[in-house]
């Protein structure tokens, strides 16, 4: 945007999903709605200036976008019977000049009201996360259509070329249109069964930003920000769902540590070594509040459980003061509800902190020998890293080399790989030191 043009980005964040949701209901086509919304914002950037903005920007944007949609329908000759209705409505709501929003406020506020708009936005999210779309398409569509990122921004975030991302989005929109994937409120009948997919997509955007398997650096705050924004939107739209609240609490509490998770070189800093004074207190408070709201709904789920663990870490003054017994207790409850190898691994790590590395190693051996899912853990780098670190803590350096090397072999994050390579060098040196110090070896 060149200087002299009015900054519409402040309006963009809030108004984008509402505008697209409203347009989808009007024109019944998500691609058309998205294009029209984009053109309306371009027009706003061109025409608004300080002191010359509409009183109700939402109404101005809607009027402008509807006109763009009608133009596009005319151009593409996909004239439906809706066109007459749309044209009549656009005429009634004025000519789309700056003054439009003044006085009577047609459009978003005057047309359907708040609850309708909530439902429309929710229907938009459910449509983007429709199970008939691939996971990659669900993620890309959610970021494009709900969060309003450009395909170039999404491409950058996922380290693919812009043309690849544009193709992915075009292909998904073609399927949406051809198979008539519903983006309207009939979706909401299945809200309960489809909400877990929406939560999973939002959380996968967060974890992609938080610890990326594909990225050379460990943290990509932009994606974390988008995910938290989506989580907040979802929480506004579905205020009485415990997992939606739990998800937002989890992301907020985890993200509060963002500034301390990597050093200046992009190397990961372990939880025990993080500078707790640099954790974002306001974010932690917000996360705790949201977790409290989730807990009050008396409907436990996996996000709420993970958020509870994040809360224990976030509220411990020092690493040594962490309430490990409470954490182990939470893992025990969750393991009974939904056994998983990752949970068992994390419980063993907590046990090592409370009762010492020997107890942790014993728990890891248990997992390896007795739990049927141990095979899955063989390709999970953190299992081997944990085992190696516990051995190193006990001074069993030479034994720790093999699990460190296995972790390195299966780890795909460059920053973590560099850290593992460093640890292998360190334990090898320590092993030599120990050997030198042994009197019988001299």
């Amino acid at each position, binding site marked *: 945007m060149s200087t002299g043009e009015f900054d519409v980005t402040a309006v963009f964040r809030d108004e984008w999903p509402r505008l697209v949701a409203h347009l989808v209901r009007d024109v019944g086509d998500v691609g058309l709605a998205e294009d029209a919304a984009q053109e309306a914002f371009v027009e706003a950037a061109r025409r608004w200036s300080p002191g010359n903005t509409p009183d109700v920007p939402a109404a101005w944007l809607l009027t402008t976008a509807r006109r763009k949609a009608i133009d596009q329908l005319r151009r593409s000759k996909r004239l439906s019977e809706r066109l007459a209705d749309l044209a009549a409505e656009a005429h009634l709501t004025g000519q789309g000049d700056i003054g439009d929003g003044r006085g009577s406020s047609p459009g978003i506020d005057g047309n359907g009201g708040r609850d309708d708009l909530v439902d429309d936005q929710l229907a938009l999210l459910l449509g983007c996360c429709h199970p*008939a779309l691939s996971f990659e398409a669900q993620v890309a569509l959610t970021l494009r259509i709900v969060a309003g990122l450009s395909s170039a921004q999404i491409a950058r975030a996922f380290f693919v070329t812009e043309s690849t991302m544009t193709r992915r989005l075009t292909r998904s929109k073609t399927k949406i249109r051809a*198979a*008539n*994937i*519903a983006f309207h409120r009939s*979706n909401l009948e299945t809200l309960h069964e489809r909400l877990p997919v929406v939560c999973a997509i939002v959380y996968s955007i967060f974890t992609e930003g938080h610890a990326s398997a594909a990225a050379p650096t460990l943290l990509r705050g932009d994606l974390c920000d988008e995910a938290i924004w989506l989580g907040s939107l979802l929480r506004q739209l579905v205020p009485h769902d415990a997992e939606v609240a739990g998800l937002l609490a989890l992301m907020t509490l985890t993200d509060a540590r963002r500034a301390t998770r990597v050093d200046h070189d992009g190397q990961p800093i372990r939880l025990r070594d993080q500078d707790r004074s640099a954790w974002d207190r306001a974010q932690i408070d917000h996360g705790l509040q949201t977790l409290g709201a989730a807990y009050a709904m008396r409907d436990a789920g996996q996000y709420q459980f993970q958020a509870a663990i994040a809360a224990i870490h976030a509220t411990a003054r020092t690493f040594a003061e962490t309430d490990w017994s409470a954490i182990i207790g939470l893992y025990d409850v969750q393991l009974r509800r939904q056994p998983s190898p990752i949970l068992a691994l994390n419980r063993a790590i907590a046990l090592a902190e409370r009762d010492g590395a020997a107890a942790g190693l014993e728990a890891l051996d248990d997992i390896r020998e007795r739990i049927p899912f141990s095979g899955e853990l063989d390709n999970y780098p953190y299992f081997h890293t944990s085992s190696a670190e516990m051995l190193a803590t006990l001074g069993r350096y030479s034994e720790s080399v093999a699990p460190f090397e296995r972790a390195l072999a299966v780890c795909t994050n460059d920053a973590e790989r560099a850290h593992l390579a460093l640890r292998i060098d360190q334990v090898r040196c320590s092993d030599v030191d120990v050997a030198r110090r042994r009197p019988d070896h001299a």
Partner: protein
Amino acid sequence: MKFMLILASDPSLEPDPTSPDFEAYMGEWFAYSQALTAAGIEFSGEALQGDDTATTVQVRDGERLVTDGPFIEAKEVIGGFYVIDVPDLDAALDWAAKIPNVCFGTVEVRPVMSFD
């Protein structure tokens, strides 16, 4: 809009025509057609003979190539299809999920191309 529901399953998992389960299984298919009719849905459909009766045809450089067997040899074979007229994909998926052999087979849901 119209969707084709293409039914594929492993024939060895179907009840044997001589077994007592077979009649009940056929009953489920009749009930399915009746449910479509009761819901006021326009539909058509056919069941096909086994893929050991399939013949494929290609014409290359004007020459007709006729081969014994289906498109692709696979464990799951196409056993029939429905074409249903419903409002959107979700409705089509709901009807696909009610097809009697979907609990051991697979139903592919494809929008039918419209040339208006």
